[in-house]
């Protein structure tokens, strides 16, 4: 049960009533302006009430909202996208979609985690949980991007790396470790954006970047709230409490210096204006690239080193 979807229900009813009234007003010579304005004010008030100060747990649910723009939606909004498939060794992992693209005319390598929208696609994409071959596809394409001197942009949205038997057999840990290893020294700019759920190492594997952006209501955490609750208290049901403790909101992460920029969402969340949200994210990525491509490669890699090298150092006695 998604708490945001629950809360939206009242709003959606109100929306419908307003639309009906407007439609009546257009057809009948009765003046309903005051009534409509009243409802609209009420609507705005409720919206502010429930979305103005969202709790971490509400953010988690917003990040998982079934209508939230997915990785593929960002790829589809690029000028052009030519998907490149496979790790060349074992399988094409559909949890990660990647390929050449143009972003406002700029050549890029675009890499996105995608959870899938309908049931069939969710299964095909393994609910956005990449297997080792997904990360190995990424590594291959990051090297290709460096060879062609084009920047890498990633869109992160996963509850975590696939925890299945096959993924363990094919060395999931090694795949993530090598993904980080590859990005650590990549010879070109990398911009990562957390667009939904940034779950654990499976998310970070695409997140070692020169610039880390985050949508306002996205979350990024060391473990899923359910997983953390299970580990800490042996009770996955205490996920809400864990969500609060884990400091996984964009505000928290901006403060920690883990995220460089937070991209605002419309009231009610990204899905209330998917097109606009996607456009704002792409504009922010483009702005980041504008700066990064000016930096000589060695300097860029030095800055990347220092950026992550200092994280957490200030919290040590």
């Amino acid at each position, binding site marked *: 049960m998604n708490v945001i979807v629950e809360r939206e229900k009242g709003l959606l009813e109100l929306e419908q009533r307003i639309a009906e009234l407007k439609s009546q007003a257009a057809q009948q010579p009765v003046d309903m302006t005051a009534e409509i304005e009243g409802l609209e004010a009420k609507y705005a008030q409720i919206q502010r009430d429930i979305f103005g100060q969202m709790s971490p747990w509400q953010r988690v649910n917003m990040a998982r909202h079934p209508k939230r723009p997915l990785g593929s939606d960002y790829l589809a909004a690029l000028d052009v996208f030519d998907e490149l498939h496979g790790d060349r060794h074992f399988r094409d992992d559909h949890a990660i979609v990647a390929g*050449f693209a143009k972003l406002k005319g700029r050549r890029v390598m675009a890499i996105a985690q995608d959870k899938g929208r309908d049931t069939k696609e969710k299964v095909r994409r393994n609910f956005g949980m990449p297997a080792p071959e997904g990360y190995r596809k990424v590594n291959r394409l990051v090297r290709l991007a460096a060879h*062609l*001197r084009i920047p890498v942009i990633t869109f992160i949205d996963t509850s975590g790396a696939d925890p299945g038997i096959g993924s363990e057999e094919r060395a999931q840990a090694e795949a993530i470790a090598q993904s980080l290893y590859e990005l650590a020294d990549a010879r*070109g700019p990398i911009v990562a954006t957390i667009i939904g759920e940034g779950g654990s190492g499976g998310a970070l594997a695409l997140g070692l970047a020169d610039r880390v952006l985050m949508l306002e209501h996205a979350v990024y955490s060391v473990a899923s709230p359910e997983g953390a609750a299970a580990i800490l208290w042996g009770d996955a049901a205490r996920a809400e409490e864990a969500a609060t403790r884990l400091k996984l909101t964009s505000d928290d992460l901006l403060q920690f210096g883990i995220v460089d920029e937070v991209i605002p969402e419309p009231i009610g969340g990204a899905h209330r204006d998917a097109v606009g949200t996607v456009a704002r994210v792409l504009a922010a990525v483009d702005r980041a690239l504008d700066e990064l*491509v*000016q930096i000589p490669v060695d300097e860029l890699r030095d800055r990347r080193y220092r950026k992550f090298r200092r994280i957490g150092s200030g919290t040590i006695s």
Partner: protein
Amino acid sequence: MAMPEWLRLRRANPIDPDQAAQWTKCPKCAAMIYRPDLAANLWVCPTCQHHFRMHAFDRISLLVDSDFTEIGGELIPGDPLGWTDKVPYPQKLQRDREKSKLTEGVVCGFASIGGCPVALGVMDFNFRGGTMGTVVGERIALLFESARERKLPCIVFTASGGARMEEGMLALMQMAKTTLTVRRFHDAGGYYISVLTDPTTGGVSASFAFQADVVVAEARAAIGFAGRRVIEQTIRQKLPDNFQTAEFLLEKGAIDMVVERHELKGRLVRLLDYGLGAQRPANGLAAQPATDTRPAPAESRS
């Protein structure tokens, strides 16, 4: 620009008015196809979309903007092993030259595609089953060496039954020879796209076909290392129909994309464009020197 006359004439299936009334049977759906229609449809069966194997110059004609400058076309193989089976090797070569109007199993040269200058190699299954002997190896090597010197991206269409028996180990060693030139080309910053067409197997699939930056396959092409029959004999059972098809390899992660022939030129033009931002260094030895003080690719906005 219009296709120059000489290039049009070197097409293996020129639409000669006297022979225009010929019909061909689709090997897949058995539809009878009027050859001029087939040619006009890029040698794709209008009924079942089966992609006929293409002659090298037909392929080149469809791809290039206008002219094509061949290199190595004058090279023809000797007979290093003094080979004879049913007929002597030189006689086989002569027969294939006549039949295919080609001097060997690959045509290499320079052209532009969608306005982008490229080095282009196209293998032809009609010449000794596209097998790689010393001349195929030499031409491919020349292609990559020239592409490196001229700082051109390189596209190679593969179609091959593997290494050529009649040239023995000299043929096998062309896998090593071509590899060295591909690697040196790449290390100099070169951008290489291979297009695997039906069939791509053996020593060609196990060398330059799978050493490209981007590996494209034509729809439904058979691609693999071992031949289908060899595998069936080894495992003593029939293989599924889709085994070793381009689509199968895509799912197995071995290739970057599968493209229908009608989409191919457009796709290649786009793929070439992604490589245009690559600034190849004056010194051809190192695309990515260990200490790199050049600016990041600021100029890659198109």
